[in-house]
C-alpha cells in the first residue's frame, strides 16, 4: 500500500464501530430520507468522506466485491487492505462507491427471481440537506417525507422513476455526506416538489 494511504487507519474499534455504523445504515434504509450518524474512522483517506469510509468498512469484504468509481479508484489499496474486498466492474459489484450518480443501467438490478442480486450504490454527496426538495413516499414513511440532498443530477426523479418501475428489481442508494448517511431503497417513490 502506498505510504500516503497507510497513514489512514480503519475503525478505531472494529466490532462496535461497525455495529453502530450498520445500525445507522439499517435505519437509513428502513426510514428513507432520514439522516443517521455513523461511527466513522478518525481520518479516512481523501477524498473519502467519513460516512462513506464507515459504510465500506462495515459492509464490504472478500464476499462482496466493490467498484471504486472515478477519483475513488486510487483508494483501491486502502479498501483492499482494510476489507479484503476485490475490485470489480460496476455490473458485477455488490457495492459501487461514487460521487456521481451512475447510469443505473450499468449496475446490476438483480433478476425477477433473485432481486437481491443487485448493486448498492454508495453515493458521496456534498450535503444531505439544502438541495432541491424531493418528496418521498413508500415503505418506511408514514405519509410523505421531504428530503433535499445536494449533488444529485437535475433529472434524478426521472431516473429514479425508471429504477422504481423495475421493482422488485432495482438499485438501492446509500447517500453519504460528512459523518451522516441517508438511504433510498428501491421500494420508494420520489417526486420533485417545488
Amino acid at each position, binding site marked *: 500500500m502506498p505510504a500516503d494511504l497507510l497513514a489512514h487507519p480503519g475503525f478505531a474499534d472494529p466490532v462496535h464501530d461497525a455495529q453502530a455504523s450498520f*445500525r445507522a445504515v*439499517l435505519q437509513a434504509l*428502513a426510514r428513507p430520507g432520514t439522516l443517521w450518524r455513523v461511527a466513522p474512522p478518525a481520518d479516512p483517506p481523501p477524498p473519502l468522506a467519513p460516512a462513506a469510509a464507515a459504510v465500506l468498512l462495515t459492509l464490504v469484504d472478500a464476499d462482496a466485491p466493490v467498484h471504486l468509481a472515478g477519483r475513488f479508484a486510487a483508494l483501491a489499496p486502502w479498501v483492499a487492505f482494510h476489507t479484503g474486498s476485490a475490485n470489480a466492474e460496476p455490473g458485477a459489484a455488490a457495492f459501487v462507491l461514487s460521487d456521481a450518480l451512475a447510469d443505473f443501467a450499468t449496475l446490476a438490478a438483480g433478476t425477477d427471481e433473485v432481486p*437481491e442480486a*443487485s448493486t448498492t450504490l454508495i453515493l458521496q454527496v456534498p450535503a444531505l440537506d439544502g438541495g432541491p426538495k424531493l418528496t418521498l413516499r*413508500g*415503505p*418506511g414513511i408514514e405519509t410523505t417525507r421531504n428530503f433535499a440532498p445536494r449533488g444529485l443530477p437535475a433529472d434524478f426523479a426521472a431516473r429514479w422513476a425508471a429504477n422504481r418501475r423495475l421493482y422488485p428489481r432495482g438499485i*438501492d442508494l446509500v447517500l453519504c455526506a460528512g459523518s451522516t448517511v441517508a438511504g433510498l431503497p428501491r*421500494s420508494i417513490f420520489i417526486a420533485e416538489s417545488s
Partner: protein
Amino acid sequence: MKGYNFAYLDEQTKRMLRRTLLKAVAIPGHQIPFGAREMPLPYGWGTGGIQVTAAVLGRADTLKVIDQGADDTTNAVSIRRFFARTAGVATTTRTASATIIQTRHRIPETTLTEAQIIVYQVPQPEPLYQLEPSRTETRRMHALADYGAMHVRLYEQVARYGQIAISYDYPVMVNGRHLMAPSPIPAFDNPKMHRMRALQLFGAGREKRIYAVPPYTAVVSLDFEDHPFRASRAAHVCALCGDRASYLDEVVTDDRGGRMFICSDTDHCASRRESAP
C-alpha cells in the same frame, strides 16, 4: 465473554447477515437466502432470530426475548441469558424498556415504537410451502406475484368450513407485492404488523432465509370481500388481570376439566396487575 466475539458471531458472518438484512429492508416481504451458521442450540429453537439479533445488537441495546408472549419460558430465558453472557447487554422483560425484542410466535400487546426493532423467529418462511414444496417453483411464483393458489386454498376453506380456518401463520401481503409468512403468530396479531412503527426483521435458521418489513408498511391479511379477515381470540376474560381485549392462553388446571384463561403476554398481564388499584 472471554474467547468469543461480541454477540458470539464472528465479524465476517455479521457482515454477511447485515448485507442480507439491508436487501431485505429494501424489498419488504421478499425472502433472501443467507448462510445460517451452526449455533449453540438446535434448529427450531430460534437460531434464525438469534443470528439476526446478533447482527443488529449493540452495547447500548436493551434486549427482551419472549416465547409465546412469555418472558419466563425456557426458550426465552436461554436466549436472553445467551446474549447477556456473549454480548453483556442489558436485558429486560418490560416491552416499553426494550430496544430490541426477539420473539417466538407473538407480538407484544404494548404498541411498539419507532425506537424499537422486533426480531421474529421463523420456522417456515415460505408461505406457499404447503401448496408447492419446490423452492424453485415458489421462487418463480413470487417473481410473478402468482398467488392464485393461496386464494384457492382460502376459498376451499370457506367452501368446506364456512370460514377461513387459519388460526396462526395467517398469510399476509406486504407492500401490495410479496406474499409473506408472518411466522406462527396468532392471526389475532396480524393487524399489529400493518403499518407498525417498529422495524420488523425475520430470521429462519434451518431454512436459511431472512426477510423484513420496514416501518409504516402495508401488511394485509388475505381475505375475500364477503369473508373479511377476522382477528379472533378466546371469548373470555384474563383470570389474573381481567383484560377483555388481550390474547389469551388456555391453561388446564386439573384432571377434571378445570381450566383458566390468562394473558399470553406475561409483561402486559403483570403491568396491569401492578397498576390495578
